[in-house]
């Protein structure tokens, strides 16, 4: 009984939140322009289903494109940074500094360079999500047991051997752990860019509906965004468990 309850609990909590939200809206008689109730939100979703679908799809693919770039670039940069202490020390302050720049400030620059459209959204998603991947991959390499390295070096292993045989495989749980974080960040990046300047995507839809006070539509778009985020997170959580089963079974645990 307990396990079925545990399995159902995410659904129960989600439904519970909607019920509370609906009740609060009705009980306090909250104006739709302030906070639309779930029923109004779902009604708006049904009414505008086609544009919402279209915008959801745009947001999804631009996010995935930016995320794919971030994964490729993040792995390469993470391996480089984790490879050598000198590069690590040299690049780390630059990366921290870069990560501190609010990406919303970068979007206008990207729009100036590439024009209104999907490209700035992809690049913003990329810029915001590659950092955790780099850090985790580099950490995976840097935390290699020194004794294991000694064992291999005493056999005449070159740095490349050690990386291929030990470093890169042991980085996997760190990498897959970081993908879950990165994918949600990528959504944030895309939507920020779409809100600032775009002609498609959920961010654009939110900005547009907001400017014409269609609050139920704004909330419908927000809900769809959350659904996309949860779905992608679940996909990468599954991939993580699938590819790094050994890390879950052995004591070595993945970084978040």
């Amino acid at each position, binding site marked *: 009984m307990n396990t079925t309850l545990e399995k159902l609990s995410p659904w129960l909590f989600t439904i519970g939140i909607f019920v509370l939200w609906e009740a609060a809206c009705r009980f306090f008689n909250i104006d739709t322009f302030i906070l639309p109730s779930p029923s109004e939100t779902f009604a708006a979703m049904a009414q505008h289903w086609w544009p919402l679908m279209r915008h959801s799809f745009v947001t999804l693919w631009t996010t995935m494109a930016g995320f794919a770039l971030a994964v490729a670039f993040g792995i390469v940069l993470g391996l480089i940074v984790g490879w050598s202490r000198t590069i690590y020390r040299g690049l780390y302050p630059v990366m921290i500094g870069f990560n501190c720049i609010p990406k919303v400030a970068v979007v206008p620059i990207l729009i100036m360079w590439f024009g209104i459209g999907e490209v700035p959204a992809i690049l913003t998603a990329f810029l915001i999500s590659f950092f955790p991947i780099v850090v985790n991959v580099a950490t995976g390499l840097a935390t290699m*047991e020194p*004794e*294991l390295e*000694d*064992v*291999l*070096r*005493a*056999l*005449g*292993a070159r740095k490349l*051997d050690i990386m291929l*045989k*030990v470093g890169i*495989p*042991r980085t*996997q749980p760190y990498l897959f752990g970081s993908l879950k974080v990165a994918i949600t960040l990528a959504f944030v990046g895309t939507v920020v860019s779409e809100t600032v300047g775009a002609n498609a995507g959920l961010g654009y839809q939110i900005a547009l509906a907001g400017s014409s006070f269609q609050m139920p539509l704004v909330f419908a778009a927000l809900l769809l965004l959350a659904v996309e985020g949860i779905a992608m997170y679940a996909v990468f959580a599954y991939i993580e468990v699938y590819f790094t089963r*050994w*890390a879950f*079974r*052995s*004591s*070595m645990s993945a970084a978040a």
Partner: protein
Amino acid sequence: MTASVDIGNVDLTYKGVSGGVLALKGTTLNVERGEFAAVVGPSGCGKSSLMKLVTGLVPADTGEIVIFGDKVRGPVKIAGMAFQNPNLLPWRKVVDNVLLPLEIVQPHRQRFRSHKAEYREQARALLATVGLDGFGERYPWELSGGMQQRVSLCRALIHQPALLMLDEPFAALDAFTREELWCVLRDLWQKLRFTVILVTHDLREAAFLADTIHVMSARPGRIVMSKPVDLRRPRDLDICFEPQFIEIVHELRAKIAEVRQA
């Protein structure tokens, strides 16, 4: 017999941000080919550092290290090593963990892909000699600590190294498992006759296994006593209760107490 490891008057300093640490000073040590040498000494005296010097993982400040006639300039490429922590790769099966050195050491490295089946058979046979028959296809986390340490020993020996370096390999095990593994190591050594340098805190372990026991001083470490162990071979565990054995352990104990005072 010729010397296989010859350490001549070596100093070693670790450079750090808060000044250097002088780990070894004027250390001299000779190990014959095929000899089983043990190194004991107080904690932090530089035993692990000595292992790194011999395998060329850290360079000495002064002095010379010669291994099988060659001066050590960089990592030696032939030594098998095992540590207190088995350090197995959790994503590889036991047999693939044992095979790891063959993917690195010449000439196996080149033949590895084409002769994989043959090498796997060798690894299984070696695992069987340490009592791990049939565990090759399991993952390390399915094994107990003592079993993992056996795998670690196999990994250190699979490429038939001329030199085996062991840094407190049995320190984390319970007394019974430890004695069992003494016998495993003894049998492997009797059969293959590689040169061994064993670092240990356990004086009984040193006396049971070694031909010569070297006692190090407190940091900066150097060898203050080299005690030959003239116990009969092959030795069995009962030897640990014989007066001659107990006398050796007492003598070592007194010496270490003395250098700790100094």
